[in-house]
């Protein structure tokens, strides 16, 4: 026993010490205190030890109290409804679920519902029962994607708890100021102190918080120590300005273009190019504009680009075509503006430079430059000499960076277009990013159209960017496509990714429409053996999960 409870009193302790010493050495070597040596000595020793043992145990007293922890701050949020609290405990208890392959059976995968549950609970503003916090923190520890929502829900007591258990340190890192309240922006002294003395994470948090409320103060603060910060810290500080970036940030970013570190320069340039009114954007517009022009004299090569559907067969009239003249050198001015001179292995230098210029140039440049055409018309123009891929890819990156919905729409094209599913100019990953610039309804509609035309095999990435729960047209398109896949006789696990998404994202009100799919269908001749049963099982899981999600939402206080 450590410093627990003192045995009764000092004389007793002496007696006990003597007994232990004798027992260790053996009665052959040492006679127990107060007994005669001889064959009865061990028994006498044990008698005395038994008395002392019970005496010592019976005499135990409480220890002195250690320093008690500071009480956790009160959580002002209302407590979870009891049913929701039970549900949360179940979702957390299911955590070490079956991982990886194999059949998933007909039971819902509770772990996957946790993010959704947390989102609803956060939206409703409930506080967790304190006793689930350890399980919640453990779950968040294992899954970084869960952390922001889990920590928001867990609230201040979880941070209090995390300070007591090293396993949960991540919570302190992930939360601004390590849970300690950030100083008020007005409180110059404390802001300065935290900035000068705080840990790196605390300083980043301070800067982001300040920047969102008082951008000028944040820049001034950063400027006070900018020159002495380490390169990787400068990079992170710069990056923390990304949210809420405004025209006022331009002078500071311009200055950072001359930074010693290449990564800092590149990030500054990237941020500047996201400000369409910036001087850098204007310089890039001039450079990029010089490389791209309309050539009215040229006739697009037949079948060269596949973008001239409107051209009547055998027409001889000249079609306006985009001509590209990639830069011949990467001058110091370009480099200063963040253009990386050295191309990655396997890429031509000139096309590498072109891509960077077009990506950084404001998209508003192009209608002006290309004869007042709309983005859609521009994208439809043929591009000479195989430059289309390079040019369109750069426009995609620019549309994403500048969050330009009109250009995104133009670059995405019609979801049902034949090349939309094939290896077209715009990859699925780029499409997913472009979709991110559209509003939720438009995104869902486009993906629904894509699935209706091309099926599910390529839809996974696109579905991932759609808002949850899926809008009705999208949900219907997915269910129809699953139904078609089933009728085609393949196994459901070819679609397990989409199935999993559907379980999490389909609107629970769709569940009743799925009932018809639960029966085991007659197997068509060309079907994989037993597939029908597996499909019924998969749909069963889908319906069960949807019902569960509906119940979850209900428990958290209505739809």
């Amino acid at each position, binding site marked *: *026993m450590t410093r627990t*409870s003192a045995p009764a009193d000092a004389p007793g302790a002496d007696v006990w010490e003597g007994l232990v010493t004798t027992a*260790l050495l053996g009665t052959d070597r040492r006679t127990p205190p107060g007994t005669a040596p001889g064959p009865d000595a061990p028994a006498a020793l044990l008698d005395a030890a038994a008395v002392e*043992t019970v005496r010592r*145990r*019976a005499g135990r*007293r409480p220890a002195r109290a250690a320093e008690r922890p500071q009480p956790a701050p009160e959580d002002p949020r209302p407590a979870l409804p009891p049913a929701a609290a039970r549900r949360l405990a179940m979702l957390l208890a299911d955590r070490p679920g079956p991982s990886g392959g194999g059949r998933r059976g007909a039971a819902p995968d509770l772990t996957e519902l946790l993010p959704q549950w947390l989102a609803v609970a956060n939206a409703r503003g409930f506080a967790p029962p304190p006793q689930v916090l350890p399980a919640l923190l453990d779950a968040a520890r294992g899954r970084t994607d869960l952390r922001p929502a889990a920590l928001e829900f867990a609230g201040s007591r979880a941070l209090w708890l995390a300070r007591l258990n090293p396993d949960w340190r991540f919570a302190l890192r992930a939360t601004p100021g390590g849970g300690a309240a950030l100083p008020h922006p007005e409180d110059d002294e404390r802001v300065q102190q935290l900035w000068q003395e705080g840990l790196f994470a605390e300083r980043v948090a301070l800067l982001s918080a300040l920047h969102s409320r008082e951008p000028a103060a944040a820049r001034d603060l950063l400027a006070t120590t900018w020159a002495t910060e380490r390169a990787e810290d400068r990079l992170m500080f710069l990056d923390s300005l990304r949210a809420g970036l405004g025209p006022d940030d331009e002078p500071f970013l311009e200055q950072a273009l001359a930074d010693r570190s290449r990564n800092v320069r590149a990030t500054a340039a990237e941020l500047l190019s996201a400000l369409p009114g910036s001087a850098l954007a204007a310089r890039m517009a001039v450079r990029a504009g010089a490389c791209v022009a309309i050539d009215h004299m040229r006739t697009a090569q037949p079948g060269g680009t596949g973008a001239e559907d409107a051209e009547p067969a055998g027409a001889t009239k000249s079609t306006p075509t985009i001509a590209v003249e990639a830069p011949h050198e990467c001058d110091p001015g370009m480099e200063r503006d963040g253009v990386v001179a050295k191309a990655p292995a396997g890429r031509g230098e000139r096309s590498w430079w072109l891509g960077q210029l077009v990506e950084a140039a404001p998209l508003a440049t192009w209608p002006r430059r290309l004869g007042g055409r709309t983005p859609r018309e521009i994208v439809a123009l043929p591009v000479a000499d195989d430059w289309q891929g390079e040019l369109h890819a750069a426009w995609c990156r620019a549309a994403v960076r500048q969050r330009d919905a009109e250009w995104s729409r133009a670059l995405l094209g019609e979801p049902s277009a034949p090349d939309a599913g094939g290896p077209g100019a715009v990859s699925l990953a780029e499409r997913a990013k472009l979709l991110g610039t559209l509003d939720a309804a438009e995104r869902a509609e486009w993906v629904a159209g894509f699935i209706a035309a091309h099926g599910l095999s390529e839809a996974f990435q696109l579905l991932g960017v759609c808002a949850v729960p899926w809008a009705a047209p999208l949900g219907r398109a997915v269910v129809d496509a699953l139904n078609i896949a089933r009728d085609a006789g393949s196994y459901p696990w070819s679609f397990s990714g989409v199935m999993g998404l559907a379980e999490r994202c389909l609107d629970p009100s769709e569940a009743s429409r799925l009932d018809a799919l639960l029966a085991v269908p007659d197997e068509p001749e060309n079907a994989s053996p037993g597939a029908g049963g597996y499909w019924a099982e998969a749909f069963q899981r889908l319906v069960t999960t949807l019902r569960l999600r509906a119940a979850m939402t209900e428990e958290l206080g209505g739809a």
Partner: protein
Amino acid sequence: MTQQGVRWTADQVLALAPDAASRKAGCKLGAAGPWSEAGSSDERTVWGLCKGSGSKPYQTVVDIADAAGPAYKCSCPSRKFPCKHALGLLLLWAADDAAVPPGQAPEWAEEWAAGRRRRAEKKAGEISGAPSGSADPEAARRRAERRAERVTSGAVELEQRLADLLRGGLATAEQSGYGLWEETAARMVDAQAQGLAGRVRELGAIPSTGAGWPVRLLEECALLHLLGQGWLRRERLPDGLAATVRSRMGLPASADGPPLRDRWLVLAQYDATDPRLTTRRIWLHGADSHRTVLLLSYGAAGRAPELALPVGLALEAEVSAYPGSGQPRVALGEQFAPPAPAAIRPPGMTTSRAAARYGDALRDDPWLESVPVTLDRVVPAPDGGSWQLADADEDAALPLTPAARSRPGLWRLVALSGGAPVRVFGEYGHQGFTPLTAWPEGPGDAVALC
């Protein structure tokens, strides 16, 4: 009703076998050779110990009272159901009156059979008034005497071994390791002194428990010596203490205390698992009697014990105490209403009172490891590498046991408290406090910590 007379035929027994291999294996065991201490009771329970390949015989028990078919339990690892031991035992019982004499079931068999019967009765909604008297009191007395003689010989032998150990010094125990103790424990099993065997086995682990092991080893040796001496002089002890000694020695006893009816709040339920047996401990608190009592329920290895009472429920029921002074153990008797959620909380005490309570309890049972206590207004506080429960209003605290520090329940307790006082039920003893259930200071349900 002379049920005892109706024994099955071998064919009836063999019809129960799950497959031909089991039938064959069961037939091999259907002879007296491997069996010991077999018997059957008026309640239609058949039991026996079957010598297997291991040192410890398998405990096999079959309940044939149920009209729906027999029920089996065996401590063997087989997944066949019934296993060959159960089949063999039934074959033996069917064929050989002498090998499976009528008698009183040993504790391990009776526990299981009684639990089954209780549930069967409940299911049927009727209370059977089957007469339960010992078939032959004289035979039972003789058996008990024989067993007592064997236990006595075990106790004498153990005393001898302890004396040898102390003559040579505890320092030698560090080198001899587990072997010495395992062998001694096996001798105690042979002597049917399970209580001694269990304690002896634990002695083997002490030298590897780090600093201070000689103190702990001497303590345990001394208590073992005290138990042995208590057994050898049991005639001179007061009745209650003598019963405690008998139960600590591992002798079977039946819960023959007067039934106590109360609303019993389920304070805690947790399982201790060893390779052979899962032991479930359920603490109950009487709303009116303010008594805290313990129910034990057993499950064969890998199977959950039958009795399950979720924490926070209360049930209206009768319990009967097992003999022995200071023993909290009871058997669950008639239940008058199914368990239902209840807002009852046990009254709490300070840490000083809890420490005194353990001291008092040692008076009745010096071998007691811990007592059930409810602490009121305590704050979990980190104390170096460990934790303690500190009185909110006094400078006093109980340390947690080393085992409790590493359990996830500790963090639930800390989270529930959030630095504020909570009420905590647990076990407190010389190793420290083991929190089992907690309640927030304000309104809120019981939170299980185990």
